[in-house]
């Protein structure tokens, strides 16, 4: 009974709340005809209707336009418009809930990018007075971008009453870009002065265009100076952005390579199936995501990634142990046979996954907390997924280093790597340590797979893209050294990203490879050389 009442209360809240927006104004003829016209025959008609709605400054316009932007506006056969919300329908004019609408009767109101742009602008305008400073900022920006006639006056009026500092600076900049086109010379001059402090590449473009048409020498000079100062700042920002992107690429390389640093670096096994361990990890993330979708409420869906990490570690670790016990242990000391048989394993694993999951890519969605990014200055966006991966990668490396350094298992592992007969004589079960070490390396590759599923494809071929890079990092960093792997990955990433803007992606990669070849000639053991079985053997 109680539950029922709760449901009723909830339902009534759901019904009442959105309807409030409509209750504000009584239906008027202008509003009705403008909304009807949203279902125009051509995009031009639709745009005219949207602008008419925007000009009405009617509180009821925003939800209708928002629904149109989201693709939730549709027309009934009698040409009246409805808004669909999670399977329910309401009348676009009155906001009343409609119960007898069939989905098959509806024809969607289609929009294209041009309409979408106008909608963005008009919706922005409607939120100029919004209490949310973020919305106000966006609104001002949208108005400047669209250059609606009279926008400058509206923004000037807005600036007079604005108290929020960040909104003020946005409005000033937006006003500046509008004033650049003003016929009034002093306005233009003032605008240049304001814009000189910007570090937006768009502003630079606008100033350059102003210069093309400007006759006034004083203005030209001011613009010159402004452009020079923006260019300087942009160059600095670019270097910063390249460094960040280099670090981010480095972290991806590192994640892919850490597992290999153990299996290849410490144990000396040329494991060509390493990439497939990464792939298995990514598929584990997919399976966990599907399990979350199927069995858990949508509110916790964002956590699937966190849960996927330990599961992927265990799953791929077990596969690794099985692989070591079943095959690799018979091949120690025979690198060529190991290489061929692990390569065979990699093909088998790929085909198994292809048979189970099918050949097409699987969608592993970024959880909300990893989507998008924060717009830094100068057109550079710091994307969340990259940032999370950098931090995650450092955490994995830190934990691994601690395990190797402080745990009993780490000690045994190092002992076996350094001197197997002696370790055996001290009572260490070397076979068991081998299996666990290989499992650890594979498990970490699985964790890497979970992270890489956030930036790339999840397909059976996922691993192949990383295997060469992983070996490159481990060999360059020094076989058997974790710190070498860290340094190797970051330096390769940064060098790659610093080269890319100048040399292009193709040539950049080739240059890096040439560099590694030369480097290995000079230092065959990589940046850091450790003593271990791989060197003795």
């Amino acid at each position, binding site marked *: 009974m109680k539950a029922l009442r709760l449901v009723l209360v909830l339902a009534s809240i759901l019904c009442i709340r959105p309807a409030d927006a409509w209750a504000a104004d009584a239906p008027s003829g202008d509003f009705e005809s403008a909304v009807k016209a949203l279902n125009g025959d051509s*995009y031009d008609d639709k745009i005219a209707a949207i602008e008419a709605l925007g000009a009405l400054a009617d509180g009821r316009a925003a939800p209708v336009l928002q629904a149109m932007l*989201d*693709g939730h506006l549709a027309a009934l056969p009698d040409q009246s418009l409805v808004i669909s919300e999670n399977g329910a329908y309401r009348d676009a004019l009155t906001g009343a809930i409609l119960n007898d609408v069939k989905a098959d009767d509806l024809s*969607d109101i*289609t929009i*294209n*990018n*041009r309409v*979408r*742009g106008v909608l*963005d602008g008009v919706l922005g305008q409607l939120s100029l007075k919004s209490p949310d400073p973020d919305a106000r900022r966006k609104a001002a920006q949208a108005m400047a971008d669209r250059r609606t006639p009279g926008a400058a006056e509206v923004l000037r009026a807005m600036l007079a009453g604005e108290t929020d500092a960040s909104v003020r600076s946005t409005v000033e900049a937006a006003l500046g870009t509008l004033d650049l086109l003003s016929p009034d010379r002093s306005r233009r001059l003032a605008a240049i002065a304001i814009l000189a402090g910007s570090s*937006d*590449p*768009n502003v*630079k*473009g*606008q100033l*350059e265009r102003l210069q093309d048409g400007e006759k006034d020498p004083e203005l030209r000079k001011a613009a010159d100076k402004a452009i020079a100062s923006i260019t300087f700042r942009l160059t600095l920002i670019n270097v910063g*952005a*390249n460094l960040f*992107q280099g670090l*981010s*690429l480095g972290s*991806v390389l590192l994640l892919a390579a850490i597992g290999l640093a153990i299996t290849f670096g410490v144990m000396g096994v040329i494991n060509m199936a390493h990439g497939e361990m990464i792939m298995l990890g990514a598929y584990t993330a997919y399976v966990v995501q599907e399990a979350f979708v199927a069995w858990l409420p949508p509110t916790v869906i964002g956590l699937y990634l966190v849960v996927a990490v330990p599961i992927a570690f265990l799953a791929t670790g077990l596969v690794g142990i099985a692989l070591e016990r079943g095959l690799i242990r018979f091949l120690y000391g025979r690198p060529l046979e190991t290489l061929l048989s692990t390569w065979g394993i990699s093909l088998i694993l*790929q*085909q198994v996954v*292809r048979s189970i999951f*099918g*050949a*097409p*890519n*699987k*969608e592993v*969605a*970024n959880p909300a907390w990893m*989507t*998008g*990014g924060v*717009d830094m200055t100068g*057109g550079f*966006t710091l*994307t*969340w*997924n*990259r940032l999370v991966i950098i931090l995650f990668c450092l955490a994995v490396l830190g934990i691994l280093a601690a395990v190797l350094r402080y745990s009993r298992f780490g000690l045994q592992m190092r002992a076996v790597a350094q001197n197997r007969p002696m370790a055996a004589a001290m009572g260490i079960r070397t076979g068991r340590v081998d299996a666990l070490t290989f499992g650890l390396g594979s498990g970490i590759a699985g964790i890497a797979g979970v992270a890489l599923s956030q*930036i*790339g*494809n999840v*397909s*059976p*071929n996922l691993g*192949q*893209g990383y295997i060469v890079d992983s070996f490159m990092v481990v060999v360059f960093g020094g076989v058997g050294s974790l710190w070498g792997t860290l340094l190797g990955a970051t330096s390769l990433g940064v060098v790659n*990203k610093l080269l*890319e*803007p100048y040399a*292009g*992606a*193709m040539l950049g*990669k080739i240059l890096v490879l040439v560099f590694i070849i030369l480097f290995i000639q000079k230092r065959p053991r990589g940046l850091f050389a450790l003593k271990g079985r791989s060197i003795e053997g």
Partner: protein
Amino acid sequence: MKLMRTIAGAGALIAVATASQAAMAAEDTIKVGVLHSLSGTMAISETTLKDTVLMMVDDLNKKGGLLGKKVEAVVVDPASNWPLFAEKARELLEKDKVAVVFGCWTSVSRKSVLPVFEQDNGLLFYPVQYEGEESSNNVFYTGAAPNQQAIPAVEYLMSKDGGEAKRWVLEGTDYVYPRTTNKILRAFLNSKGIADADILENYTPFGFSDWQTEVGKIKQFAAAGKKTAVVSTINGDANVPFYKELANQGIKASDIPVVAFSVGEEELAGIDTKNLVGHLAAWNYFESVKTPENDAFIKQWHAYVKNDKRTTNDPMEATYIGFKMWTQAVLQAGTTDVNAVRQALYGQKVKNLTGGEAVMNSNHHLSKPVMIGEIKPDGQFNVVWKTKSVIKADAWSPFIAEDKGKVADWTFPWACGNCTEPKFKAYQ
């Protein structure tokens, strides 16, 4: 001794029996070769086409087969390995003696099997959009040529509805299809008065995954103030990280639209499209187009793969049209003989799944409609523009200087795919 003789006799008997059985089978069925990669990098795209051919064969057999015989599909796996494509093609033509082959995806695999088909006088139906610049007597191209995909897409983005783009980024994977397409597009853009300074051409390796710098570059190029559009000929696996990066760096379609030529419903199935709404693709087919033919096709596909969630895409329609055309031509010719079927194919018409009729022309390419679709939040496309009528494919592009005067026409008096004057000029 006696025992030995009995065994030998039994063995011989079995051998004879199997041989005659094989001979019977060869007489009773018409063999259709399927040459699509089922493993390796291209399996992601090509497996679907294999299933499409099998579905069509199944359907044909349910209707009673062809010329009174059952149709039998011979499936081989060239494993995304280009030389293996040629080997498997030879196997299909010489050992299995197939009447026709449906296959290939990448241009390089097609180029690899081309000499085999020409030598053995085989018949290949190639179902994927490609760069043009080819017309073989032994290949029928049912995918789009550049003038049926790339050029209409660019024209759309130049139009008022497309946003009147003035500055162009041509972003591609580094191989023959993007390079040739972009060469044609550059010449086309130049002819429309776009200066080279307003075109940025950029290539990345196959399977490229770190798009931060490239996407940053696009943003910067677009900051010059003119409306900028991106034409993407990025192929295969590199697309998912590219679109993820676009979404994360906040490039909205209403600011910088990206139009892709290799991204369809199937590729989008691996991407969260909520942040990509409005980016575009140009194809001759979209799953979202509502026609009775398309509805029936989708229903048939779902039933065949026993999965309601599987999407359909443009190369599938191209395979469908090619298979239907071949069936019709065999019925018309009354034989599966390649020379006769080829003659019967010219002018053969098949209803497009999206309306109108596809026609096979004597340059071995189709006339098809062109559509531009915008990505919807559910991973489907919303058709925002469509050609008024079908467009005839150009095997040779008028925008490439070296192609001037080249004609692809396999009927009298030309009978040639790459000539500047007719082969049978003397008989005219």
